[in-house]
């Protein structure tokens, strides 16, 4: 399952971050997820709640999700449009020569954490 795969990578990255920054506990994690990244948010939070128990630093970290709207760029008429509404074909000039500008990302934006010291 896609969501579980992503969750394991988030956890791995956060374990590294915790070590580098001498973090003892993470209270929350904010992810930015693109609208067309293929990640289903409800599953994702379920996977997170199950998985975080295996990582002491994350055990009670809340997962917060921010959605990034997907935008496509048309090479022919150089306009930008909403990907989810119109798909691959440009609504302005009907060109197929279009590219996803954003909306496919999955990044860890920030965490709230307690550190030693």
């Amino acid at each position: 399952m896609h969501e579980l795969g992503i969750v394991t990578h988030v956890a791995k990255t956060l374990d590294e971050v915790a070590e580098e920054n001498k973090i003892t506990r993470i209270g929350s994690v904010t992810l930015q997820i693109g609208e067309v990244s293929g990640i289903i948010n409800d599953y994702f939070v379920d996977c997170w709640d199950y998985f975080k128990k295996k990582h002491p630093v994350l055990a009670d970290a809340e997962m917060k999700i921010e959605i990034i709207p997907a935008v496509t760029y048309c090479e022919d008429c150089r306009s930008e449009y909403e990907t989810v509404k119109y798909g691959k074909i440009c609504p302005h000039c009907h060109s197929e020569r279009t590219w996803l500008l954003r909306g496919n990302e999955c990044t860890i934006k920030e965490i709230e954490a307690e550190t030693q010291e």
Partner: protein
Amino acid sequence: MKVIELHKSVTDSNDRDADRLRAEMKEAGVLLINIMSSPGSGKTTLLSSTIKGMPETRIAVLEADIDSAVDAEKIESLGAKAVQVHTDGMCHMDAGMTRAGLEGMGFEDVDLAVLENVGNLICPAEFDTGAGKNVMILSITEGDDKPLKYPLMFETSDALVISKIDALPYFNFDMEKCMERARRLNPDIQIFPLSAKTGEGMDAWISWLHEEINRWRENS
């Protein structure tokens, strides 16, 4: 509690791990190829024909796809080395799992290592396995519009195998259109239309593999 801004991609730690593995494989002079496709596109069949077509090359296969126990047996019966890797229900292989599989199998006496990735066109494209070359298989039964649906897979692949061309007369597959769509996403992609069943097109694919194996060794 304090807020720490990270702005890290979730694939960040895997990307670094993959780069390390690639460097180690370069050092060892072993080319690792990552094969990705939808389930049933013909990965195992292509591998079997490839092993038969490269008798002088020592090939080892990491089987990560479902049915991999059967697939691994099939590959071993052809005289190649094969191990089954456990993905624990994961949708893709990452660099750590690939490394574990390679180390478990041992690759000192190998010229070409092949990873049969999990049958899925989304996740494997996002997770670098550490392979030297990425190959995607698209069977003609899946349709010529696949590049429109899974652009990232086409962008990250060095080669595209268009498989099962023996079945072209029975399917509405526009070869020219498919190639054009793939090249629009990735102008450098090498395309090999072939049939692992009849052998048509296999020569070009096998020559490419030989060239890439040599190139990998040359500057290692």
